């Protein structure tokens, strides 16, 4: 019986691993889901404070990527591809650069006051500030 509970706990921890949205420690902006979504979908180009924003994505296949796309952007991978193809081929925008791992995103955000990224909540360290978790 205990084993079953443990197994269930394990399964669900993996399935609902939180995704943390991170910015540079010097960035004091408060961001909600909509404003984060706008920054990552080329609809807003700056933080509420006016600082230009440079979103950094995480490569496909990373666990936080699907979580973020689904929970924050409300899009499946196919929808997101269709969305960006429309912008790319109309000259309206380019998707954020995708980095290979949580660590890469954290170091990119830690080194750039304009950056905003997302990683697995478990990977966050003191070099970045978490603005929201989903």
């Amino acid at each position, binding site marked *: 019986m205990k084993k079953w509970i443990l197994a269930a706990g394990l399964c669900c921890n993996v399935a609902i691993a939180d995704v943390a949205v991170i910015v540079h420690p010097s960035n004091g902006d408060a961001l909600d889901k*909509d404003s984060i979504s*706008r920054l990552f979908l080329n*609809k*807003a*180009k*700056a933080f509420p404070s006016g600082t*230009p924003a440079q979103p950094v994505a995480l490569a*496909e296949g990373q666990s936080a990527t699907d979580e973020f796309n689904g929970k924050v952007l409300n899009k499946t*991978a*196919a*929808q*997101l*591809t*269709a969305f960006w*193809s*429309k912008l*790319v*081929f*109309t*000259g*309206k925008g*380019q998707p954020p650069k995708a980095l290979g791992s949580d660590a890469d995103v954290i170091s990119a955000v830690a080194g750039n006051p304009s950056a905003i990224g997302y990683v697995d909540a478990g990977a966050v360290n003191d070099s970045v500030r978490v603005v929201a978790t989903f």
Partner: protein
Amino acid sequence: MKTKLAILTMAGLLATPAIADIQINGFANLIGGMTLDDDESVYGYDSDFNFDPASVFGLQVRGDVSDKLSATAQLVGRGSEDYDADFEWAYMTYVLNNNFNISAGRLRMPLFKYSASLDIGYSYHWLTPPDAIYGIDFNNIDGVRVDYMNYSGDWEYGAQLTMGRVETDTTISGTPAALELKNVVAVSFEATRDWFSARTLLARGTTSAVNEDFDTFVEGMSAFGAAIPNATAAAEGFSVNDDTGTFFEVAVDIDKYDWFVGAEFTQTEVDGSVIADNKAWYVTAGMRFGKFTPHITYEVEEADNGTQLGLVAALPSTISTGDAVTDATWAFVYQGAAGIAAQQELDVSAVTVGLRYDVEPGFALKTDVTWYSDDLNDLNDATLLKVGVNYTF
């Protein structure tokens, strides 16, 4: 030769070290189709399976000249043009601020809801958007476009101002003609809130079309102006020469992901020309079941030739000047005018049922069946089957 030059230019762009950041994207729509009966033809297809009418391949290169300035070129090969590669877009964009940017060069004219991504089949559910609205002779314009976008609360909205000129091939009374639109000004607005979106566009431009046979006919008619007062007005009313064209479009879309519905309406008028007032619309709906998207569309296109018929009605069918040759010539001109005016009427509709299958992000397989119906002439009715692949990278 054109292709070689284009590729060399592309290669030159790629090799230019001055442009620091270069993005290359591409798309491919390989679409084959055939009508299901031997003597049927529609949208360029007949009963022999054919890839040419709608297949499109494209490559886009974009380079950032600076933070604010970028250059974009799109090289496109269409099956309908023997895959001759052509620079359909070549423009520079300057980002004024977070809300405004300005593009200049040869760019897409945002006439319709799907204009911007017309060649990106992956971005919509059909293999090709409804012909009633999207089957026009031009989609690009040489000029300037100002794009504005912003958001307020839950709404995202934008506006576009496009100005320039268009030169393209068209047909008048079934024969090829050179169409020229000058002083084109188009204003569009769009708004999106979560699952709801709407857009509208108003455009006008000075329209001229040159076709030797047709021009000879118009001149012949106006030559009778001295004898038949209404002939001058009829000749003016038939010619497509610096006539004011107006275009209106509106589209709405509801997309709840599990299902979606959309509709679009357009109205085209070219005052004082043989081109009949045209109205077209479609409604479409679909559902998404995982990787499968079944959908259905009903489209209608109508052209009202009342004005043209009115010009003919004001003319005498025969005259008697005493000169047999003159009288016979007029009878011939009159018959021609009556025939051309009658030809401008259009009343067609179509039902399309299709299925999209998303293989992976950027890659979809589709099949559509279209039942096309010409309410003026049943002989033009046709059933069209299309299968195809959309790819983008």
